[in-house]
């Protein structure tokens, strides 16, 4: 079963220096197994200025098995699926070690954003573009960051307020926005569809 005590310690540690580390985490369910992590886009990359949300699922054998992580925010990156946000990173697979934590894993994701590995791709289309036409790749990645990951805490509140005005409850609006990576229209669609 899940090592509750360790996960709590990790959460406290992440909370302690979230301003310095650029990664944060919050619970996404009524137990400790589901969380949402956020990482800030590294400076000097096409992801600069973006805030990327990561869905985190802890297996019951955590920390002896790696956490399952997947981008919720759409990211244009050779090692992240542009379709579903699946991540190709060795420490989330066979190179996981129980001495790693959610914080170090999120920091590794941040590092992955600044150093893509196109030779070991998750998304072949993005990887091809990265290798053949780097300038276009940077342009697309930046455009995706601007479109999907550009949201400050003020921005999200405004979006929530807008949806509340339309007649949705605040909680529903917020969770819809979160699950769509802050995309207003997608959130609205989701709320309308049920």
């Amino acid at each position, binding site marked *: *079963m899940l090592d*509750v005590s*360790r996960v709590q310690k*990790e959460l*406290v540690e992440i909370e302690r220096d979230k301003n310095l580390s650029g990664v944060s985490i919050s619970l996404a369910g009524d*137990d*400790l*197994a589901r969380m949402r992590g956020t990482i800030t886009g590294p400076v000097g990359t096409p992801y600069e200025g973006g805030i990327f949300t990561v869905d985190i699922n802890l297996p019951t054998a955590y920390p002896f098995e790696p956490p399952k992580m997947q981008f919720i925010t759409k990211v244009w990156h050779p090692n992240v699926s542009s379709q579903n946000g699946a991540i190709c990173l060795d420490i989330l697979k*066979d190179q996981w070690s129980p001495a*790693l934590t959610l914080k170090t894993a999120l920091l590794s994701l941040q590092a992955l954003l600044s150093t893509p590995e196109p030779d070991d791709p998750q998304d072949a289309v993005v990887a091809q573009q990265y290798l053949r036409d780097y300038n276009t790749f940077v342009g697309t990645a930046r455009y995706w960051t601007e479109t999907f990951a550009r949201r400050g805490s003020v921005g999200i509140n405004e979006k929530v307020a807008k949806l509340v005005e339309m007649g949705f409850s605040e909680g529903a609006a917020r969770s819809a926005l979160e699950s769509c990576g802050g995309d207003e229209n997608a959130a609205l669609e989701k709320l309308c569809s049920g």
Partner: protein
Amino acid sequence: METSDEEKIGSALVPVKNDAAEEFSNDVTDVFTCQICLELVHKPVVNACGHMFCFLCVHLTMNHGWEWAVHGSESSCPLCRRQYMHFPRVCEQLHFFLLHAFPDAYRRRCKEAHVEEIRSKFVSPQFDDGLQLDLTEAIVGESSHSDLDSGKQAAKEAVETISGEGSPLVADTRVDPQRTNSSSSREQEDGYDLEGRSANCKDENEVSSSSTGVATSDLKCSVCNDLLCRPVVLNCGHVFCEECITSRDDAEESALRCSTCSSIHPGQSPSLFLELHDYLDKTFPSEYARRQREMAERNNKSCVPKKSEQLSNKPGDEEKSSFRIVHLGVGCDGCGMFPMIGRGFHCMGCERVPGYDLCLSCYESQTTPAGRFNQKHTREHRMVEIGTHASEDDEYVEDIDDLTEVDGILPSPEF
């Protein structure tokens, strides 16, 4: 159990307001924290690379390696990824040292860890440490609440802690020197005595640290009978000075043998146990500097080649044939080899979980080593070679057959 479940879970986040809790949140956690469970280390196991973890943490780490079958048959250290094949024994000296140095925190930790061990069915070896952990009590306490509820409750607590500005736990990490001193002096007044153990090893040269009440006699090397200097831990869990095991007289013998229990140290020669080294350096600065000078002088005088260099490429006890049988998920209770390679023997007299198995060389040594998981194995128990049908105990044979079916023939390791 005297506390209710909610109190118990809440205490993980909301610090208990007493001296022990504050003492615990100081240096102790930093120096002797297991990097897997992030708690004060319990029944410390030190790998050959010199990294220390709890007994159960090492067991679970090694066990997940094979279930995944991603690390091949070898385990790798969670911190440095150095590969190893043997589950070391608990470092008993360190266990008693922690009990002496941080009585309240370590006792509390032992109780918690004991419950976890019973739940996992893999109990660490019990020492005569006066803790008197009652197995039945822990089981009764455990069955009184469901894991799911505790998880939900803990999640709620976590939310509260995180959402609150300047949460109490974060604020509580500051060191309060006055409190610490008062608590340590209180310990000394209590006359804490490890079953007469600390009283026996007092000597006139003893230096004790003013802050924790720890004496140099707690951390002695049994070879030179002095304060440990650059400590290393062997596979059997015994601690020595680095110099004391590398400059031995019997240098012609190829294998490194423990001078306390005379068991062979398999695999790579042990590296410096850095955490203890740093602790000694901080706690007994002048004494430790003296020891390091002494060792340096001794090292200059002796012209004996370093044992560690000779040992670094030792092929070990493993068979050198091009194929080997690997008993996945089965470890040797003697030398700790995991997974067991080559011929293996299973005890028919011990409980099925965790079971008691020996590799060929431990089986042939006729020493009846104590089990790794506190099994009650005796010489009278019948041992059967794994994979043979020599037993009439049908259920057991089936079980063993299952094991051997999983066994694969793997190419010989590259040494």
